[in-house]
């Protein structure tokens, strides 16, 4: 059964320990640069009619560490950091030519040290030889990241175990300056007597997003699954390059239609870090409220969709009803059923509806009671629960190896939640109960979600009546210097999403990379399916509930 785990985290790994570990592994001294956020230059209220208020000058994010390495030092440095428990966060490739005179490419691997800082390891690469030793053999969670960098920037990870293209499908798309073109795409399939292939998608039978799944099966049992995604690649990251910080917001917000608060928040936090801006207290707390509303409607809908995966229409219908009620609450609160257009750099763009706020507590508690009684009926249905139990098991070891985040990680015993581990905005003043489970099956993911519904509802009910008064936005501080980089994360309904943002000349965006929670979790889905029967795939898929759009971008 799920259990509630500790609610506070203590920073225990010092910057010095990290410097020593990396220097020792490389055999020479390595300069470690704390990238301190710029001091808040007295953010002023952007709220119409309100006077400039004094805003606490505390900067809401901890230091990141930055290390510049030679390419042969990248893997030894990662190995040293793994000794300190480092986990892969994201890998980003970019062109340095846009922020300085000298041309050249670079890659950055960002890892998180538990109870310690985030470390960005940068390797600069010459434009005529954009290759480096692949990190995937040592850090399997980076497998898709490196393939994406190859497709989009032509940077070749030498020794990557899977050199197939990821983002660009045939027919070949915009030529990248690749030194070595990626191998043509062929699905990985199993061979042997009685093994057959079952191709599914990209256009699926239900109202869902496109992706191609190729099962190698014997009878009903899946031997191997190869998932091919990125059908909905819209070129989001390339599109925002050269745009202003304000112009990029509605685009990043629409990376995924049901994690809009999460993605607007990671973007806003990164911009606030780059510009030394601190959102006013009301905005910080309202962001928590909106993030929890987002988690709530997603989780309630996802519980219903798990019922759909198991063919249990009672749950689909009853929970779909509650989800619709939550969408209507969203609309009363923000004017938008999916909460778009509210969170923005500096705080919020639009205020929350006052009448919507006064009734929010009561309605959310009422809906939570309904959901709880539906879930009680569901877990008493032996036929339903037996479909979920032992289905799609993600072991704790695999979850860590592949870097699973969010519910997928927590249901497999990986105790992680950015709301508690790296709190930002209002979360710094709140104790968030982190729900965990150990079985790692669809049932565990169902239980974790069901309990998180209660946690989110309680947070909303608590906050709705006591949002601090005052302005909802601060004016952005100074213009970022070209080449400045900021990273920010947020725990969304599907787990931790991270955004990497590099400023270009004139306050424009030089490069933006969004590593969504779904991007981190997809490889895990593909690995848990073998051993299950083909008809359980929709159920396993729904129990992870990943989004294709923010994976593909």
């Amino acid at each position: 059964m799920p259990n509630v785990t500790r609610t506070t985290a203590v920073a225990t790994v010092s910057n010095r320990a990290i410097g020593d570990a990396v220097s020792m592994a490389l055999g020479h001294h390595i300069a470690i640069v704390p990238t301190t956020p710029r001091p808040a230059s007295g953010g002023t209220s952007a709220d119409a009619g309100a006077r400039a208020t004094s805003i606490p000058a505390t900067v809401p994010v901890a230091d990141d560490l930055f290390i510049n390495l030679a390419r042969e030092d990248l893997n030894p440095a990662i190995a040293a950091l793994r000794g300190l428990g480092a986990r892969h966060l994201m890998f980003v490739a970019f062109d340095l030519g846009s922020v300085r005179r000298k041309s050249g490419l670079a890659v950055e691997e960002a890892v998180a040290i538990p109870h310690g800082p985030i470390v960005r390891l940068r390797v600069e690469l010459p434009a005529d030889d954009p290759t480096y030793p692949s990190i995937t053999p040592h850090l399997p969670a980076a497998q898709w990241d490196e393939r994406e960098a190859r497709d989009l920037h032509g940077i070749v990870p030498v020794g990557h175990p899977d050199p197939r293209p990821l983002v660009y499908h045939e027919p070949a798309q915009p030529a990248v300056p690749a030194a070595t073109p990626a191998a043509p795409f062929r699905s990985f399939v199993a061979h042997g007597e009685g093994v057959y292939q079952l191709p599914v998608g990209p256009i699926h039978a239900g109202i869902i997003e496109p992706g191609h799944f190729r099962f190698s099966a014997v009878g009903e049992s899946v031997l191997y699954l190869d998932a091919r995604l990125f059908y909905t690649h819209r070129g989001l990251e390339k599109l925002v390059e050269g745009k202003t910080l304000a112009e990029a917001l509605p685009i990043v917000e629409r990376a995924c239609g049901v994690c809009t608060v999460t993605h607007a928040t990671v973007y806003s936090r990164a911009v606030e870090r780059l510009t030394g801006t601190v959102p006013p207290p009301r905005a910080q707390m309202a962001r928590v409220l909106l993030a929890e509303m987002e988690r709530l409607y997603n989780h309630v809908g996802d519980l219903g969709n798990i019922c759909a995966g198991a063919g249990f229409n009672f749950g689909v219908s009853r929970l779909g009803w509650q989800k619709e009620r939550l969408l209507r609450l969203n609309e009363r609160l923000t004017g938008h059923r999916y909460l778009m257009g509210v969170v923005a750099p500096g705080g919020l763009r639009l205020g929350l509806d006052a009448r919507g706020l006064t009734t929010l507590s009561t309605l959310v508690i009422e809906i939570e009671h309904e959901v709880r009684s539906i879930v009680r009926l569901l877990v008493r249905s032996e036929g339903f629960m037996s479909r979920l139990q032992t289905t799609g098991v993600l072991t704790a070891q695999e979850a860590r190896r592949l870097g699973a985040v969010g519910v997928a990680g927590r249901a497999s015993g990986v105790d992680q939640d950015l709301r508690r581990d790296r709190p930002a905005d209002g979360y710094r003043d709140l104790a968030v109960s982190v729900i965990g489970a150990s079985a790692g099956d669809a049932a565990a993911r169902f239980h974790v979600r069901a309990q998180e519904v209660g946690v989110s509802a309680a947070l909303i009910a608590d906050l709705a009546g006591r949002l601090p008064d005052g302005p909802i936005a601060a004016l952005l501080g100074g213009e970022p210097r070209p080449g400045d980089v900021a990273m920010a994360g947020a725990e969304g309904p599907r787990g931790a999403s991270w955004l990497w943002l590099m400023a270009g000349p004139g306050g424009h965006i030089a490069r933006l990379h969004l590593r969504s929670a779904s991007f981190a979790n997809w490889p895990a889905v593909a690995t848990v399916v073998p051993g299950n029967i083909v008809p359980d795939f929709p159920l396993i898929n729904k129990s992870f509930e990943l989004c294709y759009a923010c994976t593909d971008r």
Partner: protein
Amino acid sequence: MLQFATRGLPAIDPTRCDKNGACVEICPTNAIEFVVGGDLASHPIDGILVLEGGLLDEAVALANRTAALEYASSRPPTVRSAPTAPSVDAGRCVYCAACVTACPTGAISMTSRTELARPRRAELIERPELAGDSDDLLVGDRARARILAAHGRSLHVRHLDVGSCNGCDWEIAALLNPYHDVQRLGIDFVASPRHADLLLVTGVVTRNLEEAALRTYDAMPEPRLVVAVGACAISGGVFAGSPQIRDGAAAILPVDVFVPGCPPRPEAIIEGMLLALESRRSAERDAADAAAIRSGR
């Protein structure tokens, strides 16, 4: 502090607009535009264009006389009496309210109008005020009657995501929840395009999905209808101009109805399907079909 009930298409009050252009500048999807003079001839026929009174006559006198004449003759007569304020293209607007906050004269306000489906792309720009009935029960009743007349019993719908953020997809899924329950109207979603009468397209049309989209459409039996759902499927939405996309479904498929919104509310999608049923068939044919049904064909 600005806050809104349901955010729908913004309305511009021409008496308060001083044409300073702040709304045009800030709009993230270039949905707002007005042209005063300038190179009229270079504007595409279906472009976003509002001519002020008398400007049409001036246009004829422009250097590129032929093109201007062609342009003028192709416009519906309503253009002559077009408002003197900027126009809002409902097919691009994402209801974000940025223009409302940017307007220094307070000429722009958000409305709650979201049911704005139109069979022709250009009508989303010129006459979004001719929106259908906002009462979803009435739209539902009309849809049921039309489905009965046109298809005998039911309308089978296939959803096709060609690169949406999945917001539109979730609103389509919401059509099946107990609140909207479109099955009560005779609408059902089918697993294969071979069983479908109508294709609900969401998303920008990515390069990676172009072929799959065409093959899905090709697999549908005739007669077939196509409804483009959401700003992305109409114009590319906030992603318009990305080299990885085709800026909307009309680039590759014959679209019968465009349903604005980001995402469109479920009621707006129902209205769009209803309009699609109405768009292709004559009243006589509907009456004949209805008579055939009644006589137990």
